[in-house]
């Protein structure tokens, strides 16, 4: 936002913003425009010397400062913000459309109608009002639990969950004080204080076998801080197991789906892997999950290390073959 190319649009929006927010606190204005106090001061000083031809008093943009607040006295022609650009209208409309399609969101109607009204905000550029935008986002969960989770958040109620843990092949009972509902990488998660783990946990909505509203949620403990998800959902821990996998082309999707720490393209000269193979390292708290994955890959991917996981793959494959009558 501080790039030079963004400065003129910011200056053009600043004047009408101060007109609609007379007596605005300087710190708040800076926050709205995503700049620091010094940059805001510089912006106001620049605007102050601009205005109508002639440049005499009364021709220029003028502000009044009082304490830490600012108002605009003379906006000259800049009393209204510029129309949305095609990109701006598109980014908002596509986002609103995507959310409006999510069942169970209380905001659906408002998103739908706001999306329609935005069609008029984008000026004369034809593609900003096109019926089918060139970007589409499907956010709908396959989960039935969304509405219940949303209700628990709104009413500050506890949630009683029966929650599937596929890697351990278990359904666990959890009592959770909800903190927020997030969608990350196309999936919806509840983040909350888990009374079983006594820690903040993320729960995938499509793994909730059952979700029901419980008692009123208590005060969240001070450790209940939302995780920063910008770096992705998976956060390896020191005690996690490092697993090395070799993936033939038919198994390379693994590197797309799971967070891998290293990926090295292997040539035909490298060990047993054929051309187009990839060697990846991933970290997991759960070796059983890797064993399941190795069976699923059916020989197109193999565990190189650790040997204990390799041995577990052999054992489980042999047992399954025996069960098939071999």
């Amino acid at each position, binding site marked *: 936002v501080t790039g030079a190319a963004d400065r*003129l649009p910011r200056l053009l929006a600043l004047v009408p913003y101060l007109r609609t927010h007379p007596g605005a606190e300087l710190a708040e204005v800076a926050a709205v425009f995503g700049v620091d106090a010094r940059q805001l001061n510089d912006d106001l000083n620049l605007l102050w010397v601009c205005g109508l031809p002639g440049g005499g008093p009364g021709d220029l943009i003028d502000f009044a400062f009082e304490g830490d607040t600012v108002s605009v006295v003379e906006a000259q022609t800049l009393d*209204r913000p510029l129309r949305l650009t095609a990109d701006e209208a598109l980014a908002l409309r596509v986002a609103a459309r995507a959310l409006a399609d999510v069942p169970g969101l209380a905001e659906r109607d408002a998103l739908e109608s706001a999306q329609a009204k935005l069609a008029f905000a984008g000026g004369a550029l034809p593609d900003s009002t096109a019926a089918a935008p060139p970007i589409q986002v499907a956010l709908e969960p396959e989960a039935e639990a969304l509405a219940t989770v949303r209700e628990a958040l709104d009413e500050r109620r506890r949630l009683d969950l029966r929650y599937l843990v596929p890697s351990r092949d278990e359904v666990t009972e959890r009592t959770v004080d909800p903190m927020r509902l997030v969608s990350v990488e196309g999936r919806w998660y509840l983040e909350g204080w888990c009374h079983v783990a006594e820690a903040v946990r993320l729960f995938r909505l499509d793994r909730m076998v059952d979700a029901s509203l419980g008692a009123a949620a208590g005060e969240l403990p001070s450790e209940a801080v939302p995780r920063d998800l910008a770096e992705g959902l998976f956060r390896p821990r020191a005690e996690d197991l490092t697993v090395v996998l070799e993936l033939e082309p038919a198994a390379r999707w693994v590197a797309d789906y799971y967070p891998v720490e290293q990926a090295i393209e292997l040539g035909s000269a490298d060990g047993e892997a054929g051309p187009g193979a990839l060697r990846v390292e991933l970290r997991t708290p759960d070796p059983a999950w890797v064993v399941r994955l190795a069976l699923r890959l059916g020989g197109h991917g193999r565990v190189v290390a650790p040997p204990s996981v390799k041995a577990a793959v052999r054992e489980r494959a042999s047992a399954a073959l025996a069960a098939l009558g071999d």
Partner: protein
Amino acid sequence: MSRKKLERQLNLAICLMATTRHLSVDEIADLVDGYTRDGTPDGETAFRRMFERDKADLRELGIPVETGGVTGWDDEIGYRIERSDYALPDLHLTAAEAAALGLAARLWSSAALAEPSASAMRKLRAAGIDPLPPPSGLEPRVEATEAAFEPCLAAVREGRELGFGYRRPGQAKAASRRVHPWGVVSWRGRWYLVGHDLDRGQSRVFRLSRMDAGVRSTGPSGAVTVPPGINLRAAVEESEPGEPAVEAVVRLRPGSALALRHGAVPGPEPDTIVLTDRDLGRIADRVVEYGADAAPVDSPELAAELRRRLLGALAAHDSASDEASAP
């Protein structure tokens, strides 16, 4: 952008909005602070170039600088900005709609969409529409971590041909593709490009994560014609595994394979389920990880698929290489 240039462009925009008639270039040069002409041919060329660039910069921001005849002069082109074309119209948003847009604006985490969303919200706030803080606890986000995202989005917006290397699943090498892009779609957390594959002469769907680093636009803007009525999302859904065509009954060890049971149709007997998918191979892919806990009922074909995978896994994990790969 230098301070002088910013001041000059602001003054130009204000001047063109304040006028009710088209102003000639000479008038603009006289009126707008920041333009200087020294009367020499070189000075005139420099002024002209500066004015043309300023005009282009304003238009680039979406400011409608219109041209028209200058009163009293037949062949002279003049300029002005109609204020009603410039200004964001009153959108008559309700408080709930403003809050909904505040929520929507936070959806994007990729700069290519997050920045226009943020600047759009600043314009709405400048118009006096202050969205309430989004409802507590609701934080949908759409990532676009694929390196190909921004070049694909740009090519779609500009209607330009795209070239890239593409590695299909199971293929060792990337093959180069030339595509007329129609749109990008995020589906189940992944981004796809839908377009017309010029070499294959057919519409195709490409997953952005399978494109190589060399995604580039070629050719002129506006070269792509998007077929009217194209349903981008349906194109992506159809490109992924199709309608369930086969079914198989699987017996599960009591208390096991809980994820497989979740959402599956119960089978004819206790601890059996009916799985449906496009083909038996895909059913085997879902079942095999449960090992001895899941076995096909009356389906030698599914048993054969499972056996093939298990034998493959067994061969790939033979104990002979343990020594060599241990550190």
